[in-house]
């Protein structure tokens, strides 16, 4: 079924009985052309673009839990293309352009809202860095505006501008940035892939990857063996365990990142705000909750929950930046499992095993990358060559030292991002 105003009216007048399931619940077939391990945002988008752009529809997405139950269901929903380094900048630019056409493309309301994002800065040096980054963004055809303090104040009057340690000097405003409804993104891609013939197989955990003479031949799962000559590992925080089934060790350590949401409030924050110096960022969901987060807990973890010291740190930063937030009540907090690479940038590449592809290392940048990552991973699987927007996400860059992408400038080491 296609969603339309006419469909909405018809269903509304006839008791809403005609809405069906958005995707089938098929039994796994014994063999497919392509298997995608992981039914999160990136895996679903990969399946969708394989079918739509490359006509490869004999595809199964294998999800150990349920569609959208991983990190795509537990993030802070920010979408942006304000990266500075070559390699990252063209990729996120590509992804943002896909976001801008996504709802029409999927015939699905993913609530993509280009409400703008402001990265605050607090010193002359940081202003210069923001100006340089903004110019780089403009040079590649994206948008950026350098706001001075009065410019930020006009948009965000509720910040504490007189903070002694972090006075607001201004902000880099990226108007095309914003947010999207994370669940709807997963559901939209799932429905789009399913409509094109992709089998979405849930409650199906991969327990082994079959390799014969250096070629992948299929996988073992809790729902039986499935054959395929092309297998993509798209499993975010669990990448290490999945790759280990193929005898690989990855340059990945899984860390916990916490996020928080307040009770629903009237609209008060109409952009995304990032306070890099305090490790804090915030936006307001359409339900009214203030959605905010900070830095990693900074120790390896698969717990999907964090500890109180980092929660306290995030609250301190929130109070420092916008004292009014002290009146709001925190409703809940959660944690996501981030697959942290040494340089803080992702990996999308082939492996030493023919037909086995790897998509991992998204750190805390995975949500905004969903369409781009799916699009370029599908291209890699279909053609064997990296997409032009993702030529630098090589697995071997740590071994060679060529093309490291340390966007933060903190060093290429596991505990620094």
């Amino acid at each position, binding site marked *: 079924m296609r969603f339309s105003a006419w469909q909405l009216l018809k269903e509304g007048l006839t008791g809403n009985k005609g809405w069906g399931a958005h995707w089938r619940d098929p039994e796994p077939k014994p063999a497919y052309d392509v298997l995608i391990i992981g039914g999160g945002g990136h895996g679903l988008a990969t399946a969708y673009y394989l079918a739509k752009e490359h006509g490869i529809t004999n595809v199964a997405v294998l999800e150990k839990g349920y569609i959208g139950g991983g990190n795509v269901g537990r993030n802070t929903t920010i979408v942006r293309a304000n990266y500075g380094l070559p390699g990252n900048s063209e990729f996120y630019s590509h992804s943002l352009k896909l976001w801008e056409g996504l709802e029409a493309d999927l015939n699905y309301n993913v609530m993509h809202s280009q409400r703008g994002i402001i990265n605050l800065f607090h010193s002359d040096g940081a202003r210069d860095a923001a100006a340089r980054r903004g110019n780089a963004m403009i040079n590649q055809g994206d948008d950026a505006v350098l706001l001075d303090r009065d410019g930020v104040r006009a948009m965000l009057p509720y910040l504490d501008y007189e903070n002694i340690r972090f006075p607001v000097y201004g902000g880099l405003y990226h108007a095309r940035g914003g947010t999207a409804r994370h669940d709807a993104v997963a559901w939209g891609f799932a429905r789009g892939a399913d409509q094109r013939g992709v089998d979405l197989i849930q409650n199906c955990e991969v327990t082994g990857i079959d390799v014969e003479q250096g070629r992948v031949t299929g996988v073992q799962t809790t729902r039986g063996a499935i054959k395929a000559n092309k297998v993509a590992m798209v499993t975010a925080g669990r990448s290490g*365990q999945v790759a280990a089934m193929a005898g690989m*060790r990855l340059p990945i350590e899984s860390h916990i990142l916490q996020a928080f949401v307040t009770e629903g409030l009237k609209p008060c924050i109409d952009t995304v705000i990032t306070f890099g110096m305090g490790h804090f960022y915030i936006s307001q969901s359409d339900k009214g909750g203030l959605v905010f987060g900070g830095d990693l807990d900074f120790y390896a973890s*698969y*717990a999907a929950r964090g*500890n109180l010291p980092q929660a306290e740190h995030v609250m301190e930063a929130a109070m420092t930046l916008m004292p009014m937030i002290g009146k709001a009540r925190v409703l809940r907090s959660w944690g996501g499992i981030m697959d942290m690479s040494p340089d803080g940038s992702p990996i999308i590449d082939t492996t030493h095993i023919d037909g086995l592809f790897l998509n991992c290392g998204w750190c805390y940048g995975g949500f905004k990358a969903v369409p781009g990552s799916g699009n370029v991973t599908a291209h890699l699987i279909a053609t064997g060559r990296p997409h032009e927007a993702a030529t630098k996400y090589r697995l071997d860059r740590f071994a060679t030292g060529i093309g490291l992408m340390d966007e933060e400038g903190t060093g290429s080491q*596991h505990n620094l991002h």
Partner: protein
Amino acid sequence: MRITCPCCGPRDLREFSYRGAASDLDRPAADAPPEDWHAYLHLRDNPAGVTRDLWYHELGCASWLVVTRNTVTHEILSCEMARDVAREAAR
């Protein structure tokens, strides 16, 4: 998550800073092949379950510690002086 330092007793997590997997103690020889150095610097077992990692008691006795803990439950199983672990491994 409280870490029991062998010197100082049970202490708040905020006193410690995290370095990474305890494989950092297994430094290859200076003339080891590049593959060994790459594995040492970058590749990780990254287990979901019991792991051993290095922590520094920054706001306490300034010891380097090897903490054995569970990454799924955050349970701390043991905590040893990194010096002792390194000496034991050298035997």
